[in-house]
């Protein structure tokens, strides 16, 4: 390699000792090709059954890291070589994070589609179903009711609290709220469920209490801090000039907030609320504790057990009947439904943020 630099005296001295442009890319492709060749030979010789794509990519990437380090060290010196090695490692870290995401989405779609596409899946409950068939209607209804109720509780409280923090709060109380909202975002979801259970078991003196509204309370405990944080960020973005202009015209403070500050930041707040819904809609543990599980429809939040989608997925997996494949299929189909809802909410939230956010001046 070093012969390249010595044998061509006409090279610009500033670019000498540098690998040619795109060499990293070519080395990567070459190492993947070498790795593919090795695995293909293993396959053809019968040592392993099937061509191992994952092994090819992993082995090829490791080979690339070694090759680019050695190559760069010979041509460019040890400092640049280290830089190239770290670039490769950092990029690899990013790719490693994407692998589980791709794998999860792929397996959920592949395993979930068969049961997802059966005609009864969204039109019936699990009542009196022992084998295959049945549907998730009861769980979808339950999820909509519980999450909707949680949203109804959390959004007013969260929004008002964030208005307090941004517009009114000074001194100790505001500091304490900011701090504990941050701490609350880290409460384990199951603790929220246990809290709701302890609260209502004491209130109604019923040690085996299960009902949908309790689930909504548990989800609110998880949702409020998220709503406060995101709304607070959005309210802070409203320029002070707008508030001052309103005050100068003699508008009372509360009307300024309602008519000027909130409309300006509405897109961001809606985005935050939707992201927080997406966060709690997949919570399983608190609902398993306080909302319980059932195979029947239940439209009443305030009495009897209520099924929700995440709990449906868990119970289908955990309590498999005689025809276990039917249960596993339904679990995956439920997971697919759940992922679709969460992705839809996330996508919509981003789109709202993108469409309605105040345009930056040119």
């Amino acid at each position: 390699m070093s012969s390249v630099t010595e044998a061509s005296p006409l090279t610009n001295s500033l670019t000498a000792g540098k690998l040619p442009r795109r060499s990293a890319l070519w080395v990567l492709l070459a190492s993947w090709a070498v790795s593919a060749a090795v695995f293909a030979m293993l396959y053809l010789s019968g040592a392993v059954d099937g061509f191992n794509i994952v092994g090819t990519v992993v082995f090829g990437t490791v080979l690339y890291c070694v090759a680019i380090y050695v190559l760069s060290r010979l041509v460019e010196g040890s400092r640049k070589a280290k830089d190239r090695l770290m670039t490769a490692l950092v990029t690899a870290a990013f790719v490693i994070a994407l692998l589980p995401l791709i794998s999860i989405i792929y397996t959920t779609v592949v395993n979930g589609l068969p049961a997802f596409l059966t005609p009864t899946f969204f039109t019936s409950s699990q009542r009196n179903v022992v084998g295959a068939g049945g549907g998730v209607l009861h769980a979808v209804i339950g999820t909509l009711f519980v999450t909707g109720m949680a949203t109804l509780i959390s959004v007013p409280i969260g929004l008002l609290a964030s208005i307090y923090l941004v517009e009114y709060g000074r001194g100790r109380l505001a500091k304490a709220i900011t701090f504990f909202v941050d701490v609350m975002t880290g409460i384990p979801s199951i603790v929220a469920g246990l809290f709701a259970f302890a609260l209502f078991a004491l209130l109604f003196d019923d040690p085996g209490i299960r009902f949908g509204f309790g689930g909504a309370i548990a989800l609110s405990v998880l949702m409020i801090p998220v709503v406060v944080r995101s709304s607070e960020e959005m309210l802070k973005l409203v320029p002070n000039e707008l508030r001052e202009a309103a005050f100068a015209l003699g508008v009372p403070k509360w009307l300024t907030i309602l008519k000027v500050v909130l409309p300006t930041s509405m897109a961001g707040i809606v985005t935050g609320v939707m992201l927080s819904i997406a966060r709690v809609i997949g919570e399983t543990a608190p609902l398993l504790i306080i909302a319980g599980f059932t195979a029947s429809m239940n439209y009443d939040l305030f009495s009897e057990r209520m099924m929700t989608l995440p709990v449906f997925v868990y119970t289908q997996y955990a309590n498999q009947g005689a025809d276990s494949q039917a249960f596993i299929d339904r679990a995956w189909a439920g997971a697919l439904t759940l992922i679709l809802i969460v992705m839809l909410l996330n996508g919509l939230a981003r789109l709202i943020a993108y469409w309605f956010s105040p345009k930056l001046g040119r």
Partner: protein
Amino acid sequence: MTTAAATTIKARQRPGDRIFSSATVISGSLILAVLAAVAIFLLVESLPAFVAGPDDFNGDITNFWSYVGPLVFGTIYSAVLALLMAVPVAIGIALFISHFAPRKLAQSLGYLVDLLAAVPSVVFGLWGIGVLAPLVQPFYTTIVDWFGWFPPLAGPASGTGRTIFTVSIVLAVMILPIITAICREIFLQTPLLHEEAALALGATRWEMIRMAVLPFGLPGIISASMLGLGRALGETMAVAMVLSPSPEVIFQLLTAQNSNTIAANIALNFPEAHGVGVNILLATGLVLFVVTLLVNMLARVIINSRKAFSGAN
């Protein structure tokens, strides 16, 4: 006459203002009240567990503390393992998005990692059982064959792959997004002048990161890791579904017998619990709450102390 005497001009108090401002104060205080209520109600409901006798537990456990001990161990063991795996990768991803990826792509790549946070934990559980455990099981057999002399890796290897190590991998994937998000924010706050100064002195990109970005971001990395630890400690469904538990303290990573975690133990036993059994599970929940609260508070204190002199303001 009022204007002449007053030193400051006071705005007229309107009913609307009063109602609105007190509504916001009440909502804000309600959040503190909820946090206090969580602690109080859990404590009240778990009091019977602390005096529970040997009859209330299965097996030869005599009191609450010997019941919760192995669970606390399992919780911390799996969470710390997950953290050890997640932090280096998360720092790598954060650096990739903040300093290596093309500027135009960086934000979309950030969304991709955030999508991982949107996957419900019960789906992670299904994936851990259906995909990850069968995938890693052959490796476990090999590792036990080769490195079985090292106590934590001693055999016999689990035949299903549903070990505490698999759980830690799943947990690591689940806490990646939050650690990445915070590290990314902190790395982006590095004073541009420090970076440019390092580059101007001839540093390569990696040397610039080591000299300017990482020292600046260290407190952020620490607190992000602690927030990730808090998440991993409280994660329920993925552990409950993947782990094959046993009620003892077990250091071996790859065997079929594993210490359970507090959260997973609650989820597995709560639906069938009755009488004092419910109180015992609530008491373990209280222990979990206190542990995560302390971890989270410490993390937030570190983050907040950094805010004052970060490059952002």
